């Protein structure tokens, strides 16, 4: 293990993500959902009028912060580069199914570990699913399943600016709300940390994560590939330690299986939902959080994943796919199975054979 500058950035990213992931809940976000990219996407899709669940409509400033923070970091580090052109439609569909998997589990990979560090033992099924999913994805990569290489020449110059521009418009919407923007007055979307704090945390995390390439599924992937030599292992440990300490010090550690906030006890579907997220994340190169960060640094393929995630955020609510404490609806089960259909068919069709 080399403790170089990159390692410091990775560990710092993990620490900040874990700490703020809990503290945003303390400051007003829903329990165990201080940072949850899938929840934020569902909330924001609702705020933009893409679904009509009156309890899940709020344009989350953290989401805007992640992309614009990453954009600022990429400019500062001279790493902003428009690139893309690799299996765009597959990536769009993957973005949709990432949110399906998250909605069936109730949370993205970041929230998975936030739930775990708050003592929600039902999340263990999701942890297992995510690890198995990432492992299967890696096996696929080893067998030649690839979406193709990102190419600056395949993406028109300047196309990478579209995602930051879109989120800049969302930032404008936050401060000068247009008439079509909706904000819930009840339910979990009515719970939020103060706007400026949320935005500042989002910008900070986006900035740091762009430099470190920190990603939950990326951490698991690197650990499976490189073991203790992987810098992301230490980033992951820092994330878990910071979140656990923050939960303990705020009296938010309540170990148990039953009655946990925003969780259900359909373990097989939690496993499958996170398994789908893990597998897809390996194929498209990062978890939902990493896709947001990459879209901020000029990756137009990641921006397509983000667009797919917004469609997913709308439809998991509109089509009764999202799980609740009551369990996973039939629509959610069918959607997860459909996601695996995409993974399997895609793997067959996209595989490079000798």
């Amino acid at each position, binding site marked *: 293990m080399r403790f170089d500058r990159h390692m410091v950035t990775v560990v710092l990213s993990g620490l900040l993500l874990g700490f703020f992931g809990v503290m945003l809940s303390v400051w007003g976000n829903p329990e165990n959902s201080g940072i949850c990219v899938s929840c934020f996407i569902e909330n924001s899709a609702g705020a933009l009028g893409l679904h009509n669940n009156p309890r899940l409509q709020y344009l989350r400033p953290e989401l805007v912060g992640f992309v614009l923070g990453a954009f600022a970091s990429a400019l500062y580090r001279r790493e902003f580069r428009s690139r893309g052109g690799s299996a765009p439609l597959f990536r769009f569909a993957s973005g949709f199914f990432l949110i399906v998997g998250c909605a069936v589990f109730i949370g993205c990979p970041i929230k998975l570990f936030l739930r775990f560090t708050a003592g929600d033992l039902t999340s263990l099924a999701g942890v297992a699913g995510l690890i198995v999913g990432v492992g299967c994805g890696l096996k696929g990569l080893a067998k030649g399943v690839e979406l193709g290489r990102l190419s600056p020449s395949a993406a028109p110059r300047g196309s990478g600016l579209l995602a930051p521009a879109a989120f800049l418009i969302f930032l404008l919407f936050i401060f000068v*709300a247009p008439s079509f923007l909706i904000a819930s*007055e009840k339910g*979990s979307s009515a*719970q939020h940390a103060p706007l400026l704090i949320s935005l500042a945390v989002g910008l900070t995390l986006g900035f740091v994560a762009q430099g470190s390439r920190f990603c939950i599924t990326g951490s698991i992937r690197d650990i499976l590939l490189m073991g203790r030599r992987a810098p992301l292992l230490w980033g992951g440990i820092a994330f878990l330690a910071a979140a656990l300490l923050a939960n303990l010090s705020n009296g938010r550690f309540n170990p148990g299986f039953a009655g*946990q906030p925003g969780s259900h006890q359909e373990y097989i579907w939690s496993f499958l939902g996170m398994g789908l997220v893990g597998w897809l994340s390996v194929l498209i190169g990062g978890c939902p959080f990493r896709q947001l960060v990459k879209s901020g640094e000029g990756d137009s393929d990641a921006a397509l994943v983000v667009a797919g995630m917004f469609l997913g955020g709308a439809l998991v609510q509109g089509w009764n796919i999202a799980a609740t404490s009551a369990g996973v609806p039939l629509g959610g089960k069918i959607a997860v199975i459909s996601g695996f259909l995409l993974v399997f068919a895609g793997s067959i069709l996209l595989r490079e054979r000798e």
Partner: protein
Amino acid sequence: MKLDRFDKILLSLLAITVVALVVYSARSFPEKTTAIETRSMERDLAAQARVGLLEKLYAPVTGAMQAGQKQEALLKLEEVNTRYPGEAHGFILKGEILYRMGILDGAAAGFVRGIKLNGDYIDKNSPFSKRNVIAILVEKSLPTALSAYKNSPSNPVLKENVANLNYLKSRLAGGCE
């Protein structure tokens, strides 16, 4: 980068478009405010109307409850429920009456059905919030329900009661859903 004539035309058009966008956005502010106010008004009216209608519809039930006539309240509730069988408020009131009667498993089942239909009843700030009653119910019944279920795990009624109480506990704990 050397700009040719076509670039210059495009840049001019871009500048004109930006100016037009700013001008039209600025002009739309009064309309925007009106639209927001109208929608807020509509939403508040709908919420008030719902509260008023429910209070009126279920007045015989709540009247009987306040008078301590629990059986009477249940009968009145059945009457209203024949007209509005899928209304969450009916399930919530049933839960509350059964809670007052000491039938805790029935109360939990009623609350669960109501909250699954309308999560407002678990919110702190909702006008019909039953959060406190539900919190007391869960605290009171869950330990006994769990031990009863442990003693006879094959009993589906006990299993369902534990599941209902755990659902209510989870909703009380919050989370994003």
